């Protein structure tokens, strides 16, 4: 009987060890000032609570370009001349150092503000840093993507992997000790798939991979974002559109203030003024920003693949042609529309794909569940109030990542990445 008790104890201990619990940061000791997830998403951390970072002048960095899809030189219209080559940014240390790749979020270019921030953070800590555009961004789709229909995470990871290899080939003399990988938002989901691909390709053997605020279920995330423009906003009526309302508030804010002063404290000051935005208005603003990304993606994908949904396949475009009519059409297409009209048909045709559920399973973190569960080198940092998550998503992260999940109580979507506590935790993770 004692023996069986001991066995139970042993089994229990093993189970406990296997289900190591996530690192939950409690709100009191965390001290993040913005408890409203929408404010955090829009304004991010107040300047005085950000880490001290080097100026651009102190960083040895340049932009480079890669020709990855030479045929696009001829197939893309003239006014795409600027995105026929893929640009990226490299910040170099003057000695041997580890190199970290950073992947931008939805629709964002390599030079997005969060990428710039992360670059400064890691450069200061002694890394070479390569900033890459998101596979959903206009430049990446035009210059680097094989199918130019981003959303199928495995294919996006393949494209990214080629880009990373080409980046390395372009700098053969750069002394790199080892490779690291990180990304935020959709870039974090991409990073997980790139890391998985690297397990078989073995080009980089990433030593550590950090996912910052990834979507868990990609469909939940895009549905949430699409829904944000459906909030009921006070002050909109037949004569006043949402933008006019926003501009009206800004005008009155500046008139109260007496002069226009654009600085980092503006957003906090604005939210403290009588013109401050309600949750619904902030949600609408965030939703609007994502709808513009959706329009860019839908238009670019349609144009490159000549699908004829937004722009007629043979429509002649020169540098002088107006794109406004097509912009108007693309604006009607949200993420869900892009998924249904462009991603799913292509995915079905290429891979014998079947239902939407099957696609969601493949392109979300679910598709990598076992891999993520068994890879101690991958960690995730997320926020309990992130607006791209849905019910059950955090439970999934807890189950899969165990103590490799750090869950912050506040921060909205990526709003706390530049909070000092978070930046310390990121550096700590890569230090090992």
């Amino acid at each position, binding site marked *: 009987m004692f023996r069986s008790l001991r066995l139970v104890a042993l089994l229990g201990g093993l189970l406990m060890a296997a289900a190591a619990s996530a690192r939950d940061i409690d709100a009191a000791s965390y001290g993040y000032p*913005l*408890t*409203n*997830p*929408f404010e955090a998403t829009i304004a991010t951390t107040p300047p005085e609570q950000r880490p001290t970072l080097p100026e651009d*002048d102190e960083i040895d960095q340049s932009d480079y370009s890669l020709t990855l899809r030479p045929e696009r030189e001829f197939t893309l219209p003239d006014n*795409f001349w600027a995105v026929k080559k893929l640009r990226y940014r490299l910040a170099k240390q003057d000695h041997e150092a580890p190199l970290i790749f950073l992947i931008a979020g*939805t*629709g964002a270019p390599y*030079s997005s*503000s969060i990428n710039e921030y992360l670059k400064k953070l890691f450069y200061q800590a002694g890394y070479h840093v390569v900033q890459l555009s998101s596979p959903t*961004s206009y430049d990446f789709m035009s210059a680097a993507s094989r199918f130019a229909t981003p959303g199928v995470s495995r294919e996006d990871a393949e494209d990214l992997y080629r880009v990373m290899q080409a980046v390395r080939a372009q700098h053969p003399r750069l002394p790199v000790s080892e490779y690291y990988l990180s990304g935020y938002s959709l870039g974090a989901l991409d990073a997980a798939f790139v890391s998985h691909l690297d397990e078989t390709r073995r080009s980089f053997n990433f030593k550590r991979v950090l996912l910052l605020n990834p979507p868990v279920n990609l469909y939940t995330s895009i549905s*949430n974002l699409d*829904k944000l*423009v*459906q*909030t*009921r906003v*006070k*002050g*909109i009526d037949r004569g*006043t*559109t*949402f*933008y006019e*309302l*926003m*501009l*009206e508030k*800004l*005008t009155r804010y*500046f*008139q109260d203030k007496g002069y*226009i002063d*654009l600085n980092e404290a*503006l*957003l906090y000051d604005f939210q*403290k003024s009588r*013109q401050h935005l*309600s949750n619904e208005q902030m*949600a609408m*603003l965030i939703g*609007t920003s994502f709808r*513009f*990304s959706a329009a860019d993606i839908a*238009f670019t994908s349609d*144009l490159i693949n000549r699908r004829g949904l937004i722009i007629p396949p043979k429509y002649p475009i020169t*540098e*002088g*042609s107006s*794109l*406004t009519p097509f*912009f108007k059409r693309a*604006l009607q297409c949200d993420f869900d529309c892009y998924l249904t009209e462009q991603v799913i048909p292509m995915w079905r045709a290429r891979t014998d794909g079947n239902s939407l559920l099957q696609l969601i399973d493949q392109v979300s973190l679910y598709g990598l569940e076992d891999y993520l569960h068994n890879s101690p080198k991958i960690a995730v940092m997320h926020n309990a*109030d*992130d*607006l791209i998550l849905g*019910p*059950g998503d*955090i439970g999934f992260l807890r189950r899969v990542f165990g103590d490799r999940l750090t869950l912050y109580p506040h921060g909205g979507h990526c709003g706390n990445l530049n909070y000092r506590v978070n930046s310390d935790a990121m550096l700590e993770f890569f230090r090992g």
Partner: protein
Amino acid sequence: MVNRLLLVTALLASGHALAEEVAPRTSVVEADNTASLTAESDGFLDPLRELKFNPGLDQREFERSTLAALNIYDPLESMNRRIYHFNYRFDQWVFLPVVDGYRYVTPGFVRTGVSNFFNNLGDVPNLFNSVLQLKGERSAQITARLMFNTIIGVGGLWDPATKMGLARQSEDFGQTLGYYGVHEGPYLVLPIFGPSNLRDTTGLVVDYAGEQAVNYLDVPDTASDHPEITLLRAVDKRYTTNFRYGQTNSPFEYEKVRYVYTQARKLQISE
């Protein structure tokens, strides 16, 4: 990405609709009702739960606002777009490399000095236009800036006025015309200078002529013999302008710049 949008929005302005006035709050932290969010069993605080949604989820406000915003008078669009592409190339192949070289060969304090110097010259048209708009307080502030910066700041190389709390406030003749109700006219993209419209282009010419006539610190006269001064001014202007072609990373950058420029000018005129 989102905060960039708000900053962009921060550049904009608008018409005259009435919105509800809300009492000022003491702190950002006690914002609205999110403190009442209760955690689900796995710790998730669903931020969308508390939002008021349009019940049918079929509101077309985003589409309506955006389509209305695209409505800007631009009869010369085809030519404007070609010039926009010319400027984009010129920026990438000439302007930015020159600015990078400038950044490389000069130490930071020299560049700040150069910017201060040209800003001080620019305060002359700022003052004129401020007076023309009968803005008494602002005119007094700009006069004080000119005196402090020219005398204490050694011809404008330093900017002690800003440190004393007299921030730089820009007024140009385009704004003056707008202040008196002159319509903006068709949207124009000027070679090298970038986005403008008929009213602001007129303003640009008038301000230039004014600077030549006043000949403050003898710089305009000297510059006519030494084109390198004008060149340095152009490089400094590009160095202090944060905009980069391609930064919106969108096939519709032309439309976005056009909207932001138009609204930013309205905002500058109204304050």
